[in-house]
């Protein structure tokens, strides 16, 4: 008997809807009754993205429900909209690299976790988090993994034309299938937005980079005329990489400040030095 009410949630851009689409299509093709209802806020990439899946071997009436059997949550921010679907019998599957167990509701018995975002970033590609998550869910609800992989290819077909992308995603899927989920001891969520401001000082300049505001768009790196900016290990708002600045190369042209859509970076010449230079010029 397969009867599941599943809620999946994460950041917009993490591919939550894709996970739900793949799983629901796979279920449909194997003759199960299922429905998939996306729920999303107004912001294209700015709000948590939530998907509701109902799977049953009997005819379904409704895509919405009160309590979920499984809640899969892939980012800390995405926890708030789904707390109301959790009761003591719900299994919560969460990304332990970005979410602390302490932030989860305490009224449930079953926690499963894996540091999926960290694995994706380090072993495959950040975007592969949804492939790993799809595989984990496949195992959890006992779907035939070959059927699901066929759906992955169906859905992401266009992207898979690139052999390298295909290989990485296939490996990520396999990886997810054989992941042993943490149930008691959980990884510490260190793969999180750095909450401190990064200060750089030297060579007569001062810089500030604010990971909490940085969305890893890379425009500052592109627009730096002297290649003084590079992505670093620090993580920003969507757990994407944040740049660091090499003040020796930097000429304080102001480009990064003027181009950054998020107000997350600026470099200024130190006042003392510039005053001194003005004196020298007189």
């Amino acid at each position, binding site marked *: 008997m397969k009867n599941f009410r599943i809620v999946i949630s994460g950041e917009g851009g993490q591919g939550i809807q894709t996970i739900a689409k793949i799983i629901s299509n796979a279920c449909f093709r194997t003759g199960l009754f299922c429905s998939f209802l996306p*729920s999303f*806020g*107004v912001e294209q990439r700015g*709000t948590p993205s939530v998907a509701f899946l109902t799977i049953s071997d009997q005819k379904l009436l409704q895509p919405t429900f009160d309590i979920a059997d499984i809640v899969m949550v892939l980012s800390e921010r995405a926890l708030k*909209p789904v707390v109301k679907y959790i009761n003591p019998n719900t299994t919560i599957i969460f990304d332990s690299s970005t979410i602390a167990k302490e932030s989860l509701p305490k009224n449930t018995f079953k926690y499963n976790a894996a540091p999926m975002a960290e694995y994706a970033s380090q072993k495959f590609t950040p975007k592969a988090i949804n492939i790993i998550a799809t595989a984990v869910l496949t195992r959890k609800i006992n779907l035939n993994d070959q059927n699901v992989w066929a759906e992955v290819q169906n859905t992401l077909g266009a992207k898979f034309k690139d052999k390298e992308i295909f290989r990485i995603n296939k490996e990520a899927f396999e990886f997810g299938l054989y992941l042993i989920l943490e149930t008691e001891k959980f990884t510490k969520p260190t793969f999180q937005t750095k909450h401190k401001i990064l200060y750089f000082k030297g060579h007569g300049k001062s810089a500030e980079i604010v990971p909490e505001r940085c969305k890893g768009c890379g425009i500052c790196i592109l627009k730096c005329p002297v290649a003084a900016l590079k992505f670093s290990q620090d993580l920003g708002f969507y757990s994407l990489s944040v740049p660091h600045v090499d003040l020796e190369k930097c000429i304080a042209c102001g480009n990064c400040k003027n181009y950054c859509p998020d107000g997350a970076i600026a470099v200024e010449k130190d006042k003392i030095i510039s005053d001194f230079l003005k004196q020298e010029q007189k």
Partner: protein
Amino acid sequence: MKSSYKFITGAEAAVLGALEGGAEIMYGYPITPSTEILQGWIEKAQCNKQLKYLQTEDETTAGFAVIGSLLAGAKAFTATAGPGTILMQDPMSMAENMRLPFVAIVMQRGGPSTGTVNFSQQEVFLTAFGGNGDGLRVVYSPSTVEEVYLYCAKAFSTAWKYRFPTVVLGDGHLSKMTTGVKISKLIKPFASNPILPDSGEPVYLRNCFSSEDEFYNDRLKKNITDWDNAKSKISISEQYETYDAKELIIAHGSVAQNAKEAVDIFRASGRKVGLFRPVTLNPFDSERLKKIANTVKKIYIVESSLNQLSHIVKYEIYDAKAQMVEISKPAVGFSSNEICKLIMESD
């Protein structure tokens, strides 16, 4: 201002009423039978430089310009009809969501579509329940030119006090007829204030929300609660010869005037008929109607639309024991004799 007795049209009375209510700015687009309200206002503005106006390129712009002005704290309004009322649903919905004191004078004409420019009572649904919300709009239905004056003034106070879009719903006959009207000073109008302040902390106004829960909890719930609390304070009705009535006519607007005469005709022949006239179509004075509805045997709902008033009445007194008869002539007026005839035909 001393009271005076003037021989004026409904449109002129509307302008005088708006001025009495403290109106400062009007935006509008010419549309029969409301055009004279815009022109009348513009005439007044020539002598009084405090008054502002703009003939906009369409009704939608007129409505949103009204909103812009009231955000700045000015008592702004518009006047429209028929196809213009349809376009007005866009700004009225914004006002309904954001609790803005939007005032519109609507002179009904035949519909749907261009229909006629003359008369109807077919914009009841549109003004009371139109837009994409749940109908939190105040609708006054004046039945005489004097009431047009009165409710055009009152509309501004109601709007600025309770912050729901407020409509004065007349019709082409009221707008175009000339008759004697007593113009007197009314109660001091409720003061307006800038909704976006001139100083202090900036104010952010939004009408768009990200989730259903957020929308309901942060916006709709308060609006509905405020509406529920305000209903009994806003709703008005009138009763005519109902003290011993066995039968009741329910009619609004100018049709109610003919219905009053019909009541007199019946009474003269010994038939005990009374009239319940809702002045506010929304919120409806259901308290009073419920009381009277249970004392009569038969109720006649008389209107110049296909049962729009009847829908409201039947909703409000669904469990009345009286037999309810619908007498409707969409987009066509009634004479008092005709009302009597149609009632007798239903016997």
